[in-house]
Every structure is written in C-alpha cells, then in structure tokens.
C-alpha cells in the first residue's frame, strides 16, 4: 500500500484515540471535582493533569487562571492547542478525507459525521453547559469509529495500520492517565483519608472503563497496588499497557517489511519486559520512573514505524524532490 496512505490511516486512528483519551481524562477529573475538597486541592488536580501531558506551560501562556472552565476550554476547543479535542477530531477527519478512497464508505461517513456534529456542539457550547454529556459523546464517537472499522474493513494492511495507530496511542495515553493519578494520589486524598482514596481510585478505574473489571478480577477492596497492576500488567484488560503493546507487536508482524526488523524487535522486547515484571518490582523502582522509561520506548517505536513504513527516505536516484515530510505531531 502507498506509504502516504498508511501514514494517513495510522494518524487518523491515533487522533481519534487521542481525542477519546483526552475526554476520559477530563471527565474523570470533572467527576472528582464534585467531591468535597479544598479549592487548593482542586487546583492541584488540574495542574497535575496538565503536567503529565506536558501542557502546563502552553496552558499558562493562554489562560491566567487555573480553573475548571479554563482547563475545559483549553482541552476541548483551544484552536492553538494541537491536542485539543477539536483539533484531534479535525486531524482525524482530515486524515480520513485524504484516504477516503481506501476506507469503506461507512468508516469515512462516521468520521465525517463526527466532525459535522462537533461543529454543532461547539457552536451550542455543549462542552460548557454540560461537559460530561459532551465528553461522553466524544467517547461514543470513538467507539463508533473503531466499531465501524472492525465491522466493515477488509483485514489487510490498511486495517493493520489503523490498529497500530489506535494501540500505540492508547499505549501512550493509558500510561499518562496512570501517571497523573498516582502522582497526585497523596496530595489529593490527604484530606479525605481512606474514603477519599477509594473515590479517587474508583474515578481512575472508571476513566479507563475498568471499575467493573476490577471488582470481577479482585473481588476485594480497591488498593493502589492492584489498580496499577490491573492497568499495567493485566493482558485481558483492553486498555492496559501490556494489552496495547501486545496488539502493537501483533500488527507490526502483519505489515513486516525488509527494514522493519529493529522496530519489531523493540516492540517485542517491551512486551517481554511487561510479561516478566511484577507489580512489586515496578513500585519498588518507582511507578513514575517506570512509566517514564516505558513512554520513551513507545515514542521510539512510533518513530520506527514512521521511518520504516510511513515516510520512507527518498531513493538515491532522486536528487531534489524530497517528499514533503509529514508534519503530524508525534508528541503532544
């Protein structure tokens, strides 16, 4: 398949997933803000969310006050914030439009309808009047996009590149959601005690649709260690790190070419590490340190995919016409 086509498919999926995870992260934060807490603690919660996404500086240049309203505005519709939900959905739709001939009609129409409906929600300011409803809508459009892809697409390379995009993005995003929560766990819950911790962890689990799963797997009280274990090491949890990396390995294998060996091996190594490590080791080493090094590996795999498949270097015979390199943001 055409490299540029693969590139568009990959990024279409990444941006869709990114919008979904932004919605998840915001939603859980808004839910938590409803809990009794000091204004200081609430602000700290928003600050940590921006920090883990490396956005606190960008936010600071545009908004003077760290308030829920401003953070939502920034995360949902700020035109200058490349990973705002509006910009992610725009990028997803633009990528889809660039390859609409490769996509089943229903997949394209889903992306297009999402974009058209989004215009209406933004015009009506639904994200301000009822942020939870808006974020729920974003999540469901992402479900729809994934569902129509799986339900209608011939499972060839095009499908594999879409899946690669989905899982690589999710592998990154789940790690960030975890990082944000655990970093502020102590600060956030010191007022609320054990009860505060429960609500905090429950909100985290809900943000990755894992609350019921937790109950089913552990049938026991919610503890930080088990939550981390579930979201990092539980292979059957569709948003866990290990499940995402396994899917990356699997799809990379399907599209393998003459130069992709190193990238594939890197993904396999990361997967093997997640299979062998246990949660106590991770916590001993420090969760934040563990996630930081994990995120670096994910970024490298992303660069590898780009180099091996999506934007291959120009052939030697060609002197001048270097293809315009894709400028989609690997980072946020």
């Amino acid at each position, binding site marked *: *398949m055409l490299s540029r*086509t693969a590139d568009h498919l990959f990024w279409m999926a990444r941006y869709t997933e990114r919008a979904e995870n932004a919605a998840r992260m915001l939603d859980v934060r808004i839910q938590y803000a409803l809990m009794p807490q000091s204004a200081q603690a609430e602000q700290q919660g928003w600050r940590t969310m921006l920090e883990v996404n490396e956005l606190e500086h960008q936010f600071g240049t545009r908004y003077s006050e760290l308030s829920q309203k401003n953070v939502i505005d920034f995360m949902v519709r700020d035109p200058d914030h490349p990973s705002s939900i509006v910009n992610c959905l725009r990028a997803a739709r633009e990528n889809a*439009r660039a390859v*609409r001939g*490769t996509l089943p009609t229903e997949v394209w129409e889903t992306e*297009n309808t999402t974009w058209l409906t989004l215009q209406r929600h933004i015009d009506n300011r639904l994200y301000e009047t009822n942020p939870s409803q808006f974020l729920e809508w974003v999540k469901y459009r992402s479900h729809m996009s994934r569902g129509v892809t799986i339900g209608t697409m011939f499972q060839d390379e095009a499908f594999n590149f879409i899946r690669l995009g989905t899982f690589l993005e999710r592998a990154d995003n789940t790690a960030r959601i975890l990082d944000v929560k655990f970093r502020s766990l102590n600060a956030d819950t010191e007022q609320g005690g054990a009860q505060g911790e429960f609500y905090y962890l429950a909100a985290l689990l809900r943000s990755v649709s894992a609350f019921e799963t937790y109950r089913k797997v552990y049938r026991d009280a919610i503890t930080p260690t088990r939550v981390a274990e579930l979201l990092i090491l539980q292979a059957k949890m569709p948003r866990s790190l290990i499940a995402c990396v396994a899917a990356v390995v699997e799809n990379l294998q399907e599209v393998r070419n003459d130069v992709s060996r190193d990238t594939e091996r890197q993904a396999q190594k990361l997967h093997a590490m997640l299979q062998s490590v246990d949660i106590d080791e991770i916590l001993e080493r420090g969760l934040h340190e563990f996630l930081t090094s994990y995120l670096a590996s994910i970024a490298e795999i992303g660069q590898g995919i780009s180099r091996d498949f999506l934007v291959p270097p120009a052939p030697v015979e060609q002197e001048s016409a270097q293809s315009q390199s894709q400028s989609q943001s690997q980072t946020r």
Partner: protein
Amino acid sequence: MPNFYNEMYSDAASVRPHYHAFAQWLAEQSPQHIEQKRAEAELNFQRVGITFAVYGDNAGKERLIPFDIIPRVINAAEWATLQAGLVQRVTALNRFLHDVYHHQEILKAGIIPAEQILDNAQYRPVMRGIQLPSDVYAHIAGVDIVRAGEGEFYVLEDNLRVPSGVSYMLENRKMMMRLFPALFARNRVAPVDHYPDLLLDNLRSAAPAGVLDPTVVVLTPGMYNSAYFEHAFLAQQMGVALVQGQDLYVANNTVYMRTTRGPKQVDVIYRRIDDDYLDPRAFRPESTLGVPGLLDAVRAGRVGLANAIGTGVADDKSIYPYVPDMIEFYLGEKPILNNVPTYQCRKKEDLAYTLANLPELVVKEVHGAGGYGMLVGPASTQAEIEAFRQRLLAKPDGYIAQPTLALSACPTYVESGVAPRHIDLRPFVLSGKTVSMVPGGLTRVALQEGSLVVNSSQGGGTKDTWILEN
C-alpha cells in the same frame, strides 16, 4: 430570453411524451413530501462529503453543489443522435491530436493556419513524434452540449484536458434511486453505474505495449483541490491507488510509487493535474504537485498518461471553430453535432462585427474556463459591456465571440417554487481501442433566473440525467 425550449413542456399545457411518467408522479407528491426529500438529499450529500472545496476557506466549510430533484430526461432517439455525434467528434479530435504531433497533414492542407497550432501555448513540441498506444490522446473527454430547439444540439466546448463532474453524474443517480425508488419502477432509465469499469478498461488500454497486468493510479493535486472528492471517488470505485506527486518518483525512465513494502512500478497514470504542473523539470519548475522526470518516462514509452500531454491544443477556444472541418478532413463525414458560429476576434472583420454587436453576443476568453472572464451581452449592463469592450480592444486575439444561444430550460426547484432554469449536458466520452460512454452525462443548471452560466464555481447546480430506454 423569452423564447427557449422547455425540456418538459411543449407548451404551457402539454407535457412532452418522455416526461409523462415523471410529471404524473410529481403531481401525486405532496409539497411536504418533496420538501422532506430535498432536505434528506442535502443531509446525505453533507454526510457522504460530496463537496467541493472553496479555495482559501478552512476545512469543514466545504460547499455542496446544489442538487435538484427534477431529472433532465432525454428520449432514446435523441440520445442515439447525440451518441453518434459524440463518437464522431471525439474520434476526429483524437485523429487531429495525433496529426499535429506527427505529420501535420491538416496544416499542410491549409485547413487550419499552421501558426494557430504551432504558436499555441497549449501545443507541446515535446510530444512531437511520440507514439501512444492506439494513437489515443484524449482518453477521457467531457463534451459540453446545449440544446437550442427540437433536435438542435450545439457543442459549446470539448474539454479534453482534465474534465471533471462524472462523480456527480454517478452520485446524483445514486441519490435519486435512494430518495425515489418508485420513480425508477415507472421509467426505464438506462443505468450509468458501470462507468468506473469502463474507465478502468480504458485506462488499462493506455498501458505501454507488452504490460499484461498494468498498475493504474489516479494522480490528484491533493485534498484541497476543488475536485478532490471526484479523484478519491474514482480511485475507490476502480480499486486503484490515489496518489499525489510526492508518492511517485522516476528512476531509469520508469515511474514508481512509494509503498509500505518498497517501490512499486506504475504503468498508467490517470492524471487530474494540468500539463503545466505535471513535471517540474519539463514545465513549471516551481510545481510541487508533479513528478520530476515524468515527461522522460512518457517519451520513453514506459508509462501511459491519460489524458496525454498536449491535448489542450484541440479544445482551445481558438481551435474550436475548426472542429467541423476536422471531422470532414479525417473522417470524410458531415458533422452530426452543430458548432456554435464563432467570431475569432484576432481576425479584423470578426473583431469589427463583435464590437458592433456586443449586446447580443457571448464573448469568452480563448484560454478561460469555469465561466470566469466572459461577457453575456444580453444579461449585462451598458457599463459592463463598455468595460468589456476595453479589455477586448486591448487584447483582441485573447477572445472569441458567439451569438447568445437560447439554451433550453428544465423545470427546477427554486425558492419561489418550480420554475424553468437553463441547463447544459456534459457526457463523458472514453477513447481507447474503441470509443465508449455510459448513456447520459452530467446536467448542470443555472439556478439564477435567466442566467446562462451553469458552472458550479458560479453557483450552478446539477440534476440527474435520464436516458429513457425504448
């Protein structure tokens, strides 16, 4: 223009026979039902994204081409004449193109002044002596035809470069069948859906000799081009790759595309980019849309281009007046379709006539397209005519003039209800080993009352076009 041919009614009271079934159906529909269906059509076009980009506008603000639900119906006998006329005309045009790039018999015979061809900016000397499969230059032609009266059809333009609009022909039919299935049970409408198959066959026949299973691609300037929807649509319908210039490169006179599994050779390019932008080494050096070295690959016979480079010399408005002569010269036949009488303002006497009769004439730029830069005398104010006169005097050889035709009109939904609006027809003619087409074409409609300009860039709309089978 009070006296024009109405496609549906022969006079205020009587419906033409081929519109009977439709008129009866329409009379049975409640206005609410029609209104609801029109809204549904708009919603569907929006959702499917059948839009054309407006340059300089941001994404998500693409415009819909207005779609009118009253079809343009043509009876079988008239279509048979049109089809014969189109085959004849396009065959002669391809013969002409081959001739001007080889022996130039028509110039030697003095039928067209040689300098009008050889000095024409659209004439590409680099194509001289190049042998093309089946000697075909214009594989896809979109010939614009208007009706002035009963059985009286005129060709307005031949469009042999990168004619567009065929996707609207196909989508309009799909939309009509979706909105009003019952209509198709009452009328025997000839199908058009097989166009992409015909096109693919035709493109494959443009492959270099000896290539058994050619790889065909559609080359687009990209998603911000106004016809991007059509490029993507046709590639998808044919099951071939949609590429941009950056996806292709030329090595050893061979064209390759960059794929996830390495380079893949390309044999036929259905290009939707103008000659000027195709190859920065051969034509405009600043073009980033094209493929450096593509011309060399074409000249070496290693890749087929549809349409060939240099077809513009045959559809140029300054060459148009000679098409009837071409038909007689190459085919020894009388032209079946009429040419509009044309005054070439580069000629002294024609210029004088034009200047004296501006209020009655249509004056067009020789190299213009899209309905820009033209004067429709009867629809213009005195001031507009005078302004145009100055432009014409400054550069007479840049213009031609034609009598204002009384274009036929078709009933159309407008704000005030149903009213006649002027229309044209663009059938798509495919030339390969044989000449073929699907029955019908794209009907464009000028939505402004009295307007004769149907171009979508000027606010024109489209209609489904029905050729009724006997």
